[in-house]
Structure formats: C-alpha cells, structure tokens
C-alpha cells in the first residue's frame, strides 16, 4: 500500500510534467485543443468543489461562481499589480475564497434547504456586482493582461491533488459525518455531532477549491471579466455535478470535462449546418437544459452515482 502511494505521489506529477512538455509545444500539439483540455481540467475542479458542498454535505449552493470570482480576481490582482509569483498568488486566492466560504457558511446556522440556496445565489451576485463597482479590479471591463502562468501541468496537478484529497476525506471520519448530515441533519445532531461546525467546514473547503479553479482560470485566459462569473456559470457548474453523479467526487470531475467538451464537439458537428451553427450557443444551452431534466427526473444519481434505496 505504501509503495503504491509513493509511486502515485512521484509518478503522477512526473508523468504530467512529461506530457506537459509535449502538449505545450504549439508545433507538435494544437493550442486550440490544449485550450480545451486545460479548461476541462479547471471545470473538473469546479464541479468537484460544488459536489463537496452540495453532493456530499447536502447543502445546495448556487453561488459557486462567486467563490471562483474571488479566487480569480484576488490572484490576478496580485500577479498583475504586484508581480507576485504564481504559487503565493494561488495560496492567497485559496485563503481569501476560504474566508468568503466561512462567512457564507455561518448563515447555515439559520438557513436550510432552498433558503440557503437563495442566500448563496445572492452572495454570488453580490460578489459580481461588487467587482463591477471596483475600478481597481477593472470594473465592468475586467482585468486584462494577466500573466499566463497556468499550464496543463499546474491545472492537472491541482485536479489530481483535489481528487485525492476529497476521496481520502470522504473515507475518513469527518467525511462520514458530512454524509450523515446530508442524510439526516436532525438525527446527526441527536448523535452529538456539531452539525454547524461541519457545515461551515464544508463550505469553507468547497469555496477554497472553487477559488483555486478561479485562480487557474484567470492565469490561463489572461483575462477576467465579471460576466464570466455570472449566475449562468453557477448553473453550469451544477449541471456538471448533477450529470456526473452527486456525492461521488470523481463523477462530477468527469461531468465537468464532458460539459466543457460538449460545446466544442457541437461546434464541429454543427459546422455543416449553417442555420444550427448560427444558433450553436443556444443549441448547447438547450441541450444542457434537456440533459439536466433528463438526469434529475429519470436518473437522479447521474452517470456514476449509485441508486439510493427508497427512503
């Protein structure tokens, strides 16, 4: 078991690093495809972050884009204005979005279910509008010219660490407690679990992950824009999680990749048909909506989830 772990710890980063050399060379590998692959990794992290709070802990969040925005903007601000290196900037983004998650987590003391959902939605919008009104963050026109520090290597290393950490956590005692809160909050409380503490922890952790994804995103596209973190982005993240299978961690990661790949696939497919091609964005969203309805009504466990016993 130990040997296997050591192989993983050394082997995964090393192989990622090797692939990175090959994949980042524009004369060998198409940058257009690299762009898609990297965005797939970033969205996978986002989907996992949502799954952690909503799928595992059962607290429905519609504000994940807000945490992502905090991570993206805070790290971009540091690297752009103060020339801070990438790693400290990411750490800062993680901490700041974790604090935001902590602050949002506190209302969970009082709110449940859809009220909580609405509060997270409100939070996401508040973050967006607040950024719109901050000239030092570029206001409505966004921050431009952010140094491109993210790469295939950093994104997929972050994804690997995220997956490993979340899966390990799920098997540990705190992870089991989070699951028990999802299944029955009142019963968990009766068992003597400090429900509030764990819910706030889950929120903080999930926000930090979303912030990480945001930081990677900002340093990949080199441009952040308040509109990139709108309500629709949060919805897209939910779709990734539901599609992959809520509560499974790896399911949403694959869901995130699929949802990212889908529009590009559609673009290729629709290129033949000018009328549909003109509407490709709507076709994509329509497809998303139908997919979401299909999964939630007919296969609520997603692609990877296990069917639950009737309660």
């Amino acid at each position, binding site marked *: 078991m130990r040997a296997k772990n050591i192989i993983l710890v050394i082997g995964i980063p090393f192989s990622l690093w090797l692939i990175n050399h090959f994949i980042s060379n524009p004369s060998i590998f198409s940058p257009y495809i690299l762009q898609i692959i990297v965005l797939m990794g970033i969205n996978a992290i986002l989907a996992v972050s949502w799954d952690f709070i909503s799928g595992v802990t059962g607290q429905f969040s519609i504000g994940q884009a807000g945490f992502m925005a905090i991570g993206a903007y805070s790290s971009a601000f540091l690297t752009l204005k103060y020339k801070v290196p990438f790693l400290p900037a990411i750490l800062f983004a993680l901490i700041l979005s974790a604090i935001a998650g902590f602050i949002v987590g506190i209302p969970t003391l009082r709110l449940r279910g859809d009220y909580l959902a609405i509060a997270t*939605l409100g939070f996401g919008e508040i973050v967006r509008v607040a950024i719109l009104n901050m000239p030092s963050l570029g206001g409505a026109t966004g921050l431009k010219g952010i140094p491109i520090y993210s790469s295939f290597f950093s994104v997929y290393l972050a994804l690997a660490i995220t997956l490993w950490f979340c899966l390990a956590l799920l098997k540990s005692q705190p992870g089991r407690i989070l699951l028990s809160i999802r299944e029955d909050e009142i019963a968990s409380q009766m068992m003597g679990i400090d429900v509030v503490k764990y819910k706030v922890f889950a929120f903080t952790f999930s926000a930090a992950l979303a912030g990480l994804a945001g930081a990677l995103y900002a340093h990949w596209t080199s441009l952040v824009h308040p509109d990139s973190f709108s309500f629709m982005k949060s919805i897209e993240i939910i779709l990734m999680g539901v599609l992959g299978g809520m509560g499974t961690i790896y399911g949403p990661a694959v869901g995130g990749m699929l949802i990212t790949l889908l529009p590009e696939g559609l673009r290729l497919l629709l290129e033949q048909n000018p009328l549909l091609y003109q509407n490709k964005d709507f076709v994509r969203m*329509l497809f998303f909506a139908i997919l979401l309805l299909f999964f939630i009504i007919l296969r609520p466990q997603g692609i990877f989830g296990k069917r639950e016993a009737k309660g």
Partner: protein
Amino acid sequence: MSLFFQQLINGLAWGGIYALIAIGYTMVYGIMQLINFAHGDVFMAGAFAGYVIAQLLPDKSSLPSVILVFLSAMLFSTFLGILIERLGYRSLWKKNAPRLSLLIVAVAISLLLENVGLMIFGAAPRSFPSIIPSRSFSLGSISFTNIQVIVILSSLVLMVALQLIVMRTKMGRAMRAVAEDSEMSALLGIPRERILSFTFALGSALAGVAGVMVAIYTPQINPLMGILPGLKAFVSAVLGGIGSIPGAMLGGFVLGEAETLVSAYISSSYRDLLAFLILIFVLLFLPSGLLGKGVAEKL
C-alpha cells in the same frame, strides 16, 4: 423635493411590476415549498406572446387590440405555467422527491425557456410596438406618462382582484387550506393536484400581464429579460414574507422604491446589489419577512 417625488413615481411602476411577479413566487412557495425559478421566464414568455400578437394586428393602438394583446399574453403564460407544473414538477412532487431535485428541475426549465426564446427570437433586443402611444403629462415640475399611470393602476386592480379570488372563492379557500397543511387537506377531500395547477395558472397569468407591462414601459424585450426581474421579484416575496400574498405586494413596492432611491441618490451601479443585500439581511434577521408569520421547522 420635486426631484424626490419624480423619482418616487419612477420607482412606483417597477414596484407594481415586481409585485405582480412576486405573487406567483409566493403562492407556489406556499403550496409546494418550491422556488419556481422558471417564473421569471414565464414573465418573459408573456411579453413575447404579446409581441407576436401585436405584430399580427393591423391597428396596433386601438383599444380592442390593446386588450387582445394583454389577454393573449395572459392566456399564453397561463398555459405555459400549467404545462411547467404538469410536466416538470408534478411527478416529483407526488413522489415526495427531495426539494433539491425540484429546485434543479426549476433551474433546468428556466434554462430551457430562455434558450427556446433565444433560438426563436435571437439575442438582439427587439422593440415592442407602441400599442399605447406614450403621452407625457406635467404636474408642476413632476412629469409622468400615461403608461406609468396605466402600469401602476392596472397592477393595483389586478392585486385587488387576486385578493378577492383568494379570500372569497371556493378555489381560493382550497388554496389556502392546501398551503396550511397539504396532507390534511388531501385527507379532507381537496384535490391537491387541481389546486396546484390553479395556483400556477393564477401566478403565471399575473406574470404574463407584468411581461406586457414591462414591454410597453421600456419598450424593449429580449429572451433573457426575465432573469433579473424574476430574481428581484423573488426577493420581494421573501421581503414581504414568503407565502403571504399581501406581503409579496408590499415587498414589490418597497423594493421598487428602494432601488430607484439608491440609484438616484447613491449610484445606479449599486441598484442590482441592493436587492441581494436585502435578501441576505432578511434571511438572516427577519426570516418571516415583513408580513409573514414565523413557522417552526416541521420534523
């Protein structure tokens, strides 16, 4: 001072519109504890239904065609509301599915409606034909238009009518009973499903009218026009006390005025922030809203 009153009038029209949409949110929430995210898009659909009919009419600004536009918008959104309830929510509601699933369905339906709208009408905004030619009036230094007056008055009339339906008719009494205790009312022989459909129909009809009002007032429509007013109307419903119909009306007017005053005296860029700040404040410190009654969590 006249500036202040002028701004109040500007806010009143939006207040009425928010109130009309908020009623639909609050009624549905009262019965099935669901935030019907698709409601804002029903509002949008009403505006587009009115648009299509107005395009077809030869004499756009005669009284019969104005009535026809409003009626068709109401009918279409009523139909849409019932359709959403039947196909989207009912099976899950009957199965007692987790509220999370219902919420996701609501989000999906909202996406569906928006993108169907985008495919049919495109993303570029369209001008709504002026079925009521706007005329300005001045009262001292305050000026207002006939459209503002129509929007405010007709929203008030509709609210009174709704209140009568809910308080005085048999259907209304049944609605209140189901909202009070859904299972008990079913045991007493009230057809819960029919009441649910009726609630959706009523809320959607009001949203449809509100859609046409906004379309005439601004006068511009686009398939995403329902998102923000929808969210804000929901905030109005929470502010007034979710589940309470007079609360939704009050919340709508309070929010409309508050937004206008913020953008008049602080900055228009903070207008959209206000609604969500109010939302979080109310959720944390005044969970039963202005007119709602506190309800203990049922075990």
